[in-house]
């Protein structure tokens, strides 16, 4: 069996047998959708749930991706990483294994969010829109999990990683178009929001609901994703402890 799949299967088994991580991953996206989508007093639109669903999809993909680095940190602290690095299997399969496992987790969460959103009255996506939505989430998830997993090689311990995590994810989320469109943002936020990869993904999913193919967004995300993967593969091949 391919080494990528072996690494991925191992993490999935550990995740499901760990039970609480698994349950939490299923419950938290629902909580976000209900509290943000239904409870916030919003004035700029009547269909806030339609508006906010792409934001929550991308946000939960972001959180899932940040856990990619967390998984690697844990492997490092428990000594597994050292053993894996000494194996003849290509070292980048460790990286792709993590990306794959994050992708699977992210897609499970996204599916739960979409089903709930539709149940709560969001406008249904047609199959083409669904396909593009998943495509964007996959590219975005690969981009971010590749970044966090590689970051984890250089950050030794769990506490530092959590700190760096918070430092990256909070501003990224709040300066994106997840919660509000460009039109209602304060002036100063529009520029960071426009160059934020989170916004690319969110805008892409919104645009496809309007019947337009989000060429710019998918192009930008794919380009960034490829570049980061190249850097990450190099980093994994060269890693020394």
């Amino acid at each position: 069996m391919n080494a990528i799949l072996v690494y991925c299967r191992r993490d999935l088994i550990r995740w499901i047998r760990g039970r609480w991580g698994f349950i939490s991953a299923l419950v938290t996206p629902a909580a976000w959708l209900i509290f943000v989508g239904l409870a916030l007093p919003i004035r700029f639109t009547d269909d806030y749930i339609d508006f906010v669903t792409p934001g929550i999809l991308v946000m939960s993909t972001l959180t899932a991706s940040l856990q990619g680095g967390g998984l690697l940190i844990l492997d490092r602290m428990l000594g597994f990483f050292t053993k894996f690095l000494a194996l003849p299997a290509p070292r980048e399969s460790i990286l792709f294994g993590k990306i794959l496992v994050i992708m699977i987790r992210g897609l499970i969460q996204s599916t739960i969010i979409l089903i709930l959103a539709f149940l709560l009255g969001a406008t249904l996506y047609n199959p083409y829109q669904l396909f593009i939505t998943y495509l964007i989430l996959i590219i975005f998830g690969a981009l971010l999990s590749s970044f966090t997993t590689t970051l984890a090689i250089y950050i030794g311990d769990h506490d530092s990683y959590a700190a760096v995590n918070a430092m990256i994810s909070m501003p990224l989320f709040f300066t994106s178009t997840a919660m509000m469109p460009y039109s209602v943002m304060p002036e100063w936020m529009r520029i960071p929001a426009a160059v934020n990869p989170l916004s690319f993904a969110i805008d892409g999913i919104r645009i496809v609901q309007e019947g337009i193919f989000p060429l710019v967004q998918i192009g930008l995300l794919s380009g960034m994703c490829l570049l980061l993967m190249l850097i990450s593969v190099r980093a994994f091949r060269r890693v020394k402890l």
Partner: protein
Amino acid sequence: MDYKKRERDRPCKTPIVTHDLTRYYGDLCAVNRLNLEVENEIFGILGPNGSGKTTTVMMLTTLLAPTSGTAEICGYDIHRQPELVRKMISYVPQDMAVDVRLTGRENVMMYAELYGITDPAQGTRSALKTLDLADRADDFVKTYSGGMRRRLELAQALVHNPQVLFLDEPTVGLDVAARKKIWHHIRYLRETGMSIFVTTHYMDEADRYCDRVAIIDKGIVKAIDTPDRLKSLISHDIVTATISGIYSGFAIPGVTYAESRGDELVFFAQNGEKALPQILDALAVQGLSILAMSIRRPSLDDVFLHLTASSDEDAGPFNLSTFRNILGRRG
């Protein structure tokens, strides 16, 4: 399947050769110009904590970059051909890492698949059997004892039948019975033609189980030889005396004071039987009460202490000619 019957793809004559292998951490020299040639044997690196054993193993397994110097594993250079080196070896690190949420079989199977062996299920079965884990194979590793977890790691390492097996302190933290069992398995693997590079800080284990031993201290190899030849470095008998009181020295021809370990005094004597009563008298004259005395042949402990402690070589009871012969580069 019997490991003995399996063909090794490319048996190598000298599995490990190092050339001035050196590693600094900042200003600290963890490994200093290491020159080794390991053959088809159990080769032990013996040294106290912090002497550079793990650093050495991590350089040889391509996990850590040497500051200077290089090494070849089965003829492959660790700098230029790390992928080929990793195909030849297995590595069991000092810190144990087995997946407690997986069963023993799942743990080994995973490595069988990662190594890409032809029949992973069969390979896993025979590795578990070799290490006496077959009857507990489908239990979660959570329920395994420390010794069983170590054996599980050995099973993971030998599932692809490597040319060279690196074991970093395989017995540390285990009880006596478990340690013995691990060494029994290591010996068995050597019989099958595997070369084993093992580190330890237990002198008695190195003495009993290794074919050759390198004594290392502060990153410097002090001597390399068979345990017996190392012990013959000390030509004298060891006389020990357990006393209460303060020892203030004496002069008996043919007897030198070596050191005190707690309330035990250690002397080197050219003739132990003759020296014992003389030492007893001399100590009694000083008004010390002697609780116990013994004569024994030198152990690897004594060799180690002398190789590492005495800067003034001529004062010790060494066969200096032999000592100089075995220092430095071999072969």
